[in-house]
């Protein structure tokens, strides 16, 4: 396996649904973005936000395990904003960029360990998080972590 590159395969066999194959796994992705709260697929943007959360939390839990940090629960709230979603809809007369303009991640770590130690592990984990590092480099990501009991 190539250790610096990853591949997936995707098929768009119907409108607004893409089937993604990653190794032996398959998952469905809905429209790039959608404005209906009742929409019955997970949009590509929501997958991206979920992937960022998984990246941050996964990196932290992995490192916490190796550092023998006593972590009970970790949770993240991710908020993403697009520059101008009307550009995605092709609205005549609009301008700007439909891309992600701001990402905010609020994390809550439940641990009985020393708070300073939790923060140290957290900071190190962020340095190791591929997606978080990518969005940080793009200047769009703000991450806050709070230790709770």
């Amino acid at each position, binding site marked *: 396996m190539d250790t610096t590159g990853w591949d997936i395969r995707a098929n768009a066999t119907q409108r607004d649904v893409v089937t993604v194959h990653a190794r032996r796994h398959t998952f469905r992705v809905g429209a790039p973005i959608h404005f209906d709260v009742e929409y019955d697929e997970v949009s590509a943007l929501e997958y991206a936000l979920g992937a960022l959360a998984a990246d941050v939390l996964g990196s932290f839990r992995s490192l916490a395990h190796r550092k023998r940090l006593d972590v009970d629960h970790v949770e993240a709230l991710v908020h993403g904003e697009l520059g101008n979603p009307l550009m995605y*809809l092709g*609205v*005549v007369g*609009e301008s700007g960029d439909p891309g992600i303009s701001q990402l905010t991640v609020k994390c809550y770590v439940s641990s009985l360990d020393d708070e300073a130690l939790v923060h140290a592990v957290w900071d190190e984990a962020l340095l190791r998080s591929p997606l978080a590092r990518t969005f940080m480099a793009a200047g769009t990501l703000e991450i806050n972590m709070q230790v709770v009991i």
Partner: protein
Amino acid sequence: MTNPVLVGAVLYDPKVSIIWDIIRDFFESQGCPIDVVFYTNYELQVKALADGHIDMAWNSPLAWLDSVRQTGGTCRAIAMRDTDRDRVTHFVVPQDSAAQSLEDLRGKTLAVGAKDSPQATLIPLGVMQQAGLEPGEDFEVRRFDLLVGKHGDHVGGELEAFKCMAAGEADASCMLDLNWDGWTGEGIISPSSYRILATTPRFDHCVFTVRADFDPALEKRWLEALYAMTYENPDHREMMDMEGLKAWEEGRTSGFGPLGYALEKQAYFEGSDA
């Protein structure tokens, strides 16, 4: 393959695209396909209709009158919602206001919506003018220019106008009857604290507009598809609820008098390039 009818619509919120997706699918199922072209404001849409870039426009009342102006009076109103007919705007005051008529607003402050909102600004100011009260001379106007270009489709301007009055910074505010009904029903406005001082004459609201050269056979087919949408059909009901109607009606032009009067009195199109 039949070319889809190109229908223009102004988006004041991305969520509005959802209803148009549903309407597009509905027309497809009726064998009369449409493509929806979204515009950021009515000015662009009216120009697109006049220039022949689209076949039809879902026009605000102001956009309708602008279309009449830009097509030399040749465009036609072909369909509207039942709820677009016979609307009124209320002048709302606090319950304890001393005002008993519009005349009592002389020397006072009236809060209105966006400068291009027929219901929240243009028509009520026209009614004041008809009553002999000139804006800026006989009374002050506090205007809330939210999303200008959307012709007041976004209710934010009306709500801000009401809040302005509620904060004591205006003596009266203007709002569409549907908003008064909705906001008093939802508890946003307490009917025990506010009352309707006066009401405008009835006027009509949005209307599907076509140019004079729109193919009559295609128009007939399109209208047949539109009228196939019935509230009795559960498959159509959700779509109609989202669009706020119980039935589609023929387009009529008799309900734009109060706005036409206001536009003339306020020289609204004066200096316009189009």
